[in-house]
């Protein structure tokens, strides 16, 4: 996960943004499959926040 260069900076944020857009739109288009698609994609940004926080919480062994 390299932060070097602008491409590296935007890769993950852009992916999370894309998933968010798909997720927000999905559930309005229908029920069943569309709801599941919505829940799955919108959970990713939240999971990323949680995992990053968990792994780097002060006192835990610092590993990204």
């Amino acid at each position, binding site marked *: *996960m*390299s*932060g*070097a*260069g*602008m491409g*590296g*900076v*935007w*890769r*993950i*944020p852009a992916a*999370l*943004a894309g998933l*968010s*857009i798909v997720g*927000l739109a*999905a*559930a*309005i*288009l*229908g*029920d069943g499959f569309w*709801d599941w698609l*919505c*829940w799955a994609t*919108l*959970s990713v*940004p*939240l999971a*990323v*926040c949680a995992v*990053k*926080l968990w792994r*780097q*919480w*002060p006192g835990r062994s*610092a590993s*990204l």
Partner: protein
Amino acid sequence: MTPASLRGWRLVHRWTSLICSANLLILCVTGLILVFHHEIQHLMGEELDSSYTEGQARLPLQSLVDIAQKADPTLVPKLLSFDPEDKAVNYIYLGKPEERGFDLGRWVVLNGFTGANQMLKQPEETLVGFLLKLHVDLFTGFAGQMFVGVMGLLFVVSTVSGLVVYGPFMKKLAFGILRFGRGTRIGNIDLHNLFGVATLVWAFVVGLTGAILSFSPLITGYWQKTELAAMTARHPEPMTGPAVSIDRVAAAGLAAFPGKDLAFIAYPGNEYAGSRHFSVLVRGHTELTQRLLSVALVDAETGVVAEAAGTPWYMTVLMLSGPFHFGDYGGLPLQIIWALFTIVTGVVTVTGFVVWLKRPRTRAASDRNASGAKLGSKA
């Protein structure tokens, strides 16, 4: 990006965020609870009675109107509103006979199957009503609602400017790095950047739709004064005889749009209808199409549809803003996701504020600091 334009974006991000931060925290806390308003109303016994037995027939609209009018015989029916999610809940607005607006009368809520009359409590009397009022207008009415709308727009600008300044800041940093061991400011910056960029699209959408909903009186008012007024002006005939029943009006309106459901019916003489024409507004019934309204003008004396039309794009935008703000279109899992995003947004707000509190006193001072020179005085 030039250093000057980056400085400009930083200023925009700092000030739009700072101005809306206090209100934003209120919105996050109240919004976090309001996401579950159905569940809370259920627990508190504040929900409307929508019970009916399977296969039970709806009461005719006319008998609902008659029941409503018993609440205050000096008032006349002006508007019927139908809940898209709950078939049994019908709202009837009663006003003074000469009233064209919706300020002086009262709402009556009826169970459309049993006719049971339910008192609408004042917002202050219920938990959800209280939180909603705090969320929407800070208990200060129309002016407060416009204020919250402007705060919402500032928040939208803050998310966009935040994205712009994120790139240059993160140039040499790995995504998601959290340097908690490096002091309060650095730790808060990192948390702010990670949580902010990860939830940016959600925050942008919820902020923008919230601002649009805040301005809804202006948006519906504009539609009423332009397209709807032009439509009713094409049918200026006055009332000369008795009106047909409201059920016939509803049926005529529905027949003009096969497969749609009733959304609103406005009686002749109020500002959303003609002088002798009812406005019947209908909507579809999927998650998407229930937000698309169409309107038919129905002649009150003949029960014939005089004109039928869709609604303009900005009304569709307004109607679609609802689900994307409330997160109520994907079941309980989406409500929980909405609540978690709200918490993350609250963390972004607080950490952003801490970063500002802990800022280096001036740019010159921080530069001198960085170069190791002795600080002369504070800024």
